[in-house]
């Protein structure tokens, strides 16, 4: 008996599979757009409203606190949105819905499946941060903005999205489904509050130990980079070049370790 002739894959098969999987994700997000908005916007909007508007109106925060808060909230939105786009779906898809199997069996390398997940998380993250701009104007009346800082601004959002995607990949593949509630309390919350989104890092020198803790959270450098881009004169901040120098290897490490975790779950 001879083996039947092994087929040749038409050129572009792998990229088409990649594009179609991305299209499926965008298609589902588009059809559930209100749910997407609620999921990604609610938390930063409330933070913005309470800390930026309510406390300011009641004179509990100084005028100008929004200069600290708003860039930080953009960083928070960028990181958290990308993280949520990966962490929870991955835990569910590997854990019980098994939805990911149909993608893993599509004619493309497993790395493309990871790549698509990361790209989709970045797209969601950018969409969410862009929505935060008009919302900031509505809630606060105005937002700090410098056209000249646009490249830094975009770099901050992209790096923030990638940091979030890296964390999401890591958590989504390392956390077993039965521990998903622990993910919230033990990982999400500390990450959220040590990322310098609500305070500028240089001034933490008055609270040295906390300054050291926050320096270990990559999100800190995203917040500081956004401040460096948007309010460089108004708020003390870490130099943007230093933020970028820290963020690029952080992103690389998170994505590499996260991808390893993904492979471990995808292939026994």
């Amino acid at each position, binding site marked *: 008996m001879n*083996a039947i002739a092994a087929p040749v894959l038409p050129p572009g098969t792998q990229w088409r599979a990649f594009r179609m999987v991305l299209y499926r994700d965008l298609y589902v997000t588009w059809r559930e757009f209100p749910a997407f908005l609620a999921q990604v916007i609610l938390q930063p909007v409330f933070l913005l409203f309470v800390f930026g508007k309510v406390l300011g109106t009641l004179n509990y925060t100084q005028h100008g606190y929004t200069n600290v808060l708003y860039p930080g909230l953009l960083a928070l939105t960028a990181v958290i949105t990308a993280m949520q786009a990966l962490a929870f779906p991955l835990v569910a898809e590997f854990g019980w819905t098994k*939805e990911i199997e149909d993608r893993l069996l599509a004619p493309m390398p497993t790395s493309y499946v990871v790549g698509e997940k990361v790209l989709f998380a970045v797209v969601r993250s950018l969409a969410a941060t862009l929505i935060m701009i008009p919302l900031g104007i509505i809630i606060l009346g105005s937002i700090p903005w410098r056209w000249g800082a646009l490249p830094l601004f975009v770099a901050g959002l992209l790096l923030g999205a990638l940091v979030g995607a890296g964390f999401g990949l890591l958590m989504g593949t390392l956390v077993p489904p039965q521990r998903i509630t622990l993910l919230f309390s033990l990982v999400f919350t500390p990450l959220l509050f040590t990322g310098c989104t609500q305070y500028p890092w240089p001034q933490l020198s008055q609270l040295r130990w906390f300054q050291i803790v926050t320096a270990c959270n990559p999100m800190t450098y995203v917040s500081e980079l956004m401040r460096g881009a948007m309010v460089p004169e108004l708020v003390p901040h870490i130099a943007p070049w230093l933020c970028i120098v820290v963020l690029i290897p952080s992103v690389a490490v998170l994505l590499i370790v996260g991808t390893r975790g993904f492979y471990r779950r995808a292939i026994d």
Partner: protein
Amino acid sequence: MVPAEPEGVAVEVRDLVKRYPKSPVNAVDGVSFAAVAGEVFGLLGPNGAGKTTTIGMLTTRVRPTAGMARIGGVDVVGDPVRARAQLAVVPQQSNLDRSISIRDNLIFHAAYHGVPARVREERADELLDQFGLLDRAKDKPDFFSGGQSQRVMIARALMHAPRVLFLDEPTTGLDPAARLFVWDRLRELQDSDVTLILTTHDMDEAALLADRVGIMDHGHLLALDTPDALVRALEGEGTLELAADRPADRTVVEALAALDGIDRVEQVHAAAEDGAPESSDSQPLRVRLYLTGDAALLVAPAAAVLTEHGLALQDVKLGAVTLEDVFIHLTGRTLR
């Protein structure tokens, strides 16, 4: 029957081994077989025999520790992408996309596999119709029963016209009507060029659907042949099941085992037929004799043994050899 045309090996497995980390034994331990195009190949064995792991390796989801596996001539380890293009999997547990309708499940699956837009639309409607799902095409799979999900998954698998279709326990957990429906659809596929590799622990399913059956246990392939040939290998070995009116002790069983033409005797400890389970001592005697000779000639001597021990014969069942008996013969255990 193994179809003569088209000639060619669709699935080839040689000395395949899988040992999971931290496991002292191989989950799959040197399995070799080949299936030709259009064949229905069944892997029969109890849970934990290594069937699903074997399928996992063939479908690029489990990395073999050693050995070789090819799908349509493509090495699954060396070129998993090309292997995936030719295969489809219907898993034990539903893995349907819950965010989209079942029609979209079919369409997106085909899109991942590069089926042109018009073809996938047409094929989706054809398959939904064939699988009796047309009226639910727009529903999401959330509230589908096991049988319905199974039908959707088989339809989805066929969307990209795979050469090899893997079905892992395709009817486990389905109600009898759903099981018959799935069996009918799979029998329709027997006439096509698609090679079916199915795992099952149901001997009826294996005998009904498979052209050839490989019997697996503890990671080994113990036997491999057509269901007829496997059963014929135990020729003369029918079974004779006897039920007496009262409980009895081991001496009766031993006396029966001593009769000529009896291979061995197994006491059947079933739950009482109409009521709560009783302990085996209080149950009327029920035994299964595995025969080496003609069953009809043994009824009278066996009845005589019962009478000698003061028991009356209540029921006699002559059994033909089934795949389950083949499995028992090979492993000394029942399938369940």
